[in-house]
């Protein structure tokens, strides 16, 4: 069965001051799948990722034109509450960034912000989120200990659990494994395979083999332009655009 479009992007332009950082990007991101963005540094892939939950709003000089819809609703509409938007569209960053508090409080933070006070309910959310991020068994006996005492790979899964705790629809991941060793990377990649059963996952990665392994569809960006967007196996076997071919085969970059 053809998957529904979760995020629809039309004619998206983004400027940082005079710098035209994204040029007329159009894309349909399918629900419950993994979509990967690849491209050389500075190509706009992370900028584009951040437009999907309005993280770029935090940058003063930014100007955005075009349409971004989540479930057919314009996320740049005037009445959109960005806090609620980011509850629906969670984000995980390159460097694991747990809060300097206990593992439990890290996960309970979001639900508490959104008004959940009931201890039993919070306990349940914390456990479910940690299980969802495939880290519960590793930390269940030290939930009250600081999250900063965990390894980098564990911290990253805590951050994923923290994102899951507010029950998002979409998870944006900005190079989530680039600071991790191969074993932690493999765990996160396996986790992504699980996550896409329930969530729409969008991942920026510098590791092309990772894009091949984890994603269903891949978009290739170059100097602000989305050059090619296709099923991952087609893009990496039969790239249509010469620039895609040159990049993925290492002829420039």
């Amino acid at each position, binding site marked *: 069965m053809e998957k529904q479009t979760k995020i629809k992007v039309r004619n998206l332009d983004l400027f940082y001051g005079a710098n035209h950082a994204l040029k007329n990007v159009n894309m349909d991101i399918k629900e419950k799948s993994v979509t990967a963005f690849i491209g050389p540094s500075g190509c706009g892939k992370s900028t584009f990722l951040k437009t999907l939950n309005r993280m770029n709003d935090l940058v003063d000089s930014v100007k955005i034109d075009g349409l971004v819809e989540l479930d057919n609703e314009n996320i740049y509409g005037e009445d959109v509450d960005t806090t609620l938007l980011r509850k629906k569209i969670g984000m995980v960053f390159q460097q694991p960034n747990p809060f300097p508090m206990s593992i439990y409080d890290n996960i309970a933070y979001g639900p508490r912000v959104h008004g959940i006070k009931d201890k039993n309910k919070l306990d349940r959310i914390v456990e479910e989120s940690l299980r969802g991020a495939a880290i519960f068994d590793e930390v269940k006996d030290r939930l009250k200990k600081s999250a900063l005492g965990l390894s980098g790979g564990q911290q990253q899964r805590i951050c994923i659990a923290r994102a899951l705790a507010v029950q998002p629809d979409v998870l944006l991941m900005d190079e989530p494994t680039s600071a991790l060793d191969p074993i932690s990377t493999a765990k996160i990649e396996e986790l992504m395979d699980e996550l896409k059963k329930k969530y729409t996952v969008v991942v920026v990665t510098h590791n*092309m*083999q990772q894009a*091949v392994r984890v994603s269903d569809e891949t978009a290739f960006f170059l100097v602000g332009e989305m050059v090619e967007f296709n099923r991952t196996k*087609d893009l*990496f*076997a*039969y*790239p249509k655009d010469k620039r895609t*071919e040159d990049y*993925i*085969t*290492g*002829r*420039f*970059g």
Partner: protein
Amino acid sequence: MRTKFQEQLDILNKDLMNMGALIEKSIEDAVDALMKKDIDKAKKVMDGDTVIDNEEKKIHNICFNILMQQQPVAKDLRLVSAAMKMVTDMERIGDHASDISEITIFLAKKPLDGRAKHIDRMATETVKMLIESIEAFIDKDIEKARSVIKNDDIIDSLFLKTKQDVIDMISDNRNSGEVATDILMIAKYFERIGDHATNIAEWVIYAYSDTAEEI
């Protein structure tokens, strides 16, 4: 960028061409030995099979290293995966040249019944088909590869004619059974070589076509 990778791909290409030249020579010599009842030449073909086997291992190792070290994608990946399959077909062709030569040595000692008239043409057509499939690879010529695939029907129909020749031989002369079955074996080897040449042509299309197409 990718200087070493390009070097590895160039070596792979060069070795594949070399392997192609080796099997071409091997099958041409095998046919020549068969026609001329040249036992020495047939023996040389059989000895030469070891060189072909070693070349196959060498190419396989090159492919293996490229996969391990470079994790190729797109046309690089298609070339390497096609090379791994193609080299197997080439090695089999070498085996069949050797098989034919083994029978040639036996047949050379027997009076060849002139009624197996289609075997010569089968030999000529098979060699032609093989050479064209290797040319298609060297020239990255998808059209030529397609015509090779089409020509396989010629070999298949010559096989059926040779089979009929063999049946006629046996019904004409009950003592010709041993020679007749050997001729049938040779015909079958040529038919198999035709199939392997078809495979090579298919891998050429796979490696150099810009779109995924049914082959």
